């Protein structure tokens, strides 16, 4: 069902965990199947210096979480915001059709975390 790359990221996910003093945190839940994902960001000079995730969900949810953190790490915020669910799925060599929404979750969590960071920045000013 899953590509080998999905299985690699699922069984050996990158960037699992929390960042205690995160600059931005985004949590999204998918109403379709009740899964949840949180992304933590450490930002330096408008760039994602560190990124971690926590996910409650299926193999695809975990793999896409891992992949999105790998893709986003080191990118500027504007670059990171451009990552779509299709980009994530493509990097994983595809996902089964009924699992595409899981990659949406990952992209949304990243966006939510960046927005959280920007909101906090705006509040500071």
């Amino acid at each position, binding site marked *: 069902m899953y590509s080998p790359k999905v*299985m690699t990221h*699922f*069984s050996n*996910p990158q960037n*699992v965990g929390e960042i205690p003093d995160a600059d931005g945190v985004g*949590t999204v839940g998918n109403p*379709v*199947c*009740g*899964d*949840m*994902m*949180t992304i933590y960001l450490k930002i330096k000079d408008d760039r994602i210096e560190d990124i971690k995730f*926590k*996910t*409650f*969900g*299926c*193999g695809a*949810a*975990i793999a896409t979480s891992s992949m999105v953190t790998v893709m986003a790490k080191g990118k500027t915020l504007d670059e990171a915001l451009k990552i779509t669910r299709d980009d994530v799925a493509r990097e994983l060599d595809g996902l089964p059709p*009924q699992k595409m929404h899981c990659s949406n979750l990952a992209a949304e969590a990243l966006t939510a975390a960046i927005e959280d960071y920007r909101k906090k920045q705006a509040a500071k000013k």
Partner: protein
Amino acid sequence: MTMKRVYLDNSATTKVSDEVVSAMLPYFTEKYGNPSSLHSAGREAREAVEAARARVADAIGASPAEIIFTSGGTESDNIAIIGGALANKKKGNHIITSAIEHPAVIETCRHLEKNGFKVTYVPVDQEGILRLDELEEAITPETTLITVMHVNNEIGTIQPIREIGKIAKEKDIYFHTDAVQAFGKVPVNVDDLGVDMLSLSSHKVHGPKGVGVLYLRRGTPVRSLVYGGGHEKGIRSGTENVAGIVGMGKACELAVRDFDRNVEQMTRLRDRLMDGLLKIDHSRLNGSRTKRSPNNVNISYSFVEGESMVLLLDMKGIEVSTGSACSSKKLEASHVLLSCGLDPETAHGSLRMTNSKYTTEEEIDYVIETLPGIVSRLREMSPLYKK
């Protein structure tokens, strides 16, 4: 690398017994006749089919004339329900079933609902046991058929079939039970249960896939779903799957012969697994402790998702299943778990482990050793879990 695999998904399907395969083999390349043919090869095939019919009848206390061979449990359920509903259409258009049936029953009832029938889905209690009082209340003068499964395929709950049988008889309503998961695990005798129709599936009892049985008590009217040469008393046309039917006959014979031994072993291993896996914190047993199939363990682990557990267990050579929404085609949590009152989140974390006569204690112990690490690894990853 060869990894020994631990197969604990026997409610999905079972390994075919070697004895069953041996019984089937001659019917592919030596005794390959068509039972409808007049000549020796045909008669030989006919005899094999009738011998299998007698064995199946014997196994459930029926007479051979009451046994219809079908292509599987799904088709048996469909003939009983659609065929039964249509045959009794003049008497009424109301059917009663339970909320936790297999899709072969639920989807069939839904189909009938789209075609002018009314269906009541009687709820179950927290252990998944049908509420008899609600069943009785549901009966109307229009009710022509009650269909309630004997043993549930997900949580292993055993339903009060005998009691339902009495109610049905009293009210003169035909009664069908899907005994696909019951046969070989609990005693299945059609008179004792008081059923008019009963479904079996070969591949759930170490027989081949693609063969089912519909028991039809003498005089029970059903309409056919498939038309043709008039095989199986006109109820199921199509050249008989001789090898498969022989396999099903053998599988039934073995299931009855070894019933006590198998049940003793399955029960022991079920309890060992259940006790071992309930030691993991934030776990709960789904289904009933006492009215439970000897081979079924179903446990929910909070804060983790079932598909992930299934995949990680698979990497360790352990094959199980889950009622998680994520693993279903429609991304809906198991209707059985929800009907028992679980919230969707807890249903998400469910695992079903179903053993068979081939399961060993060593295998069970390996699962008990392996699962805790997987659960805690996934919990570490879960945003919901706070130590």
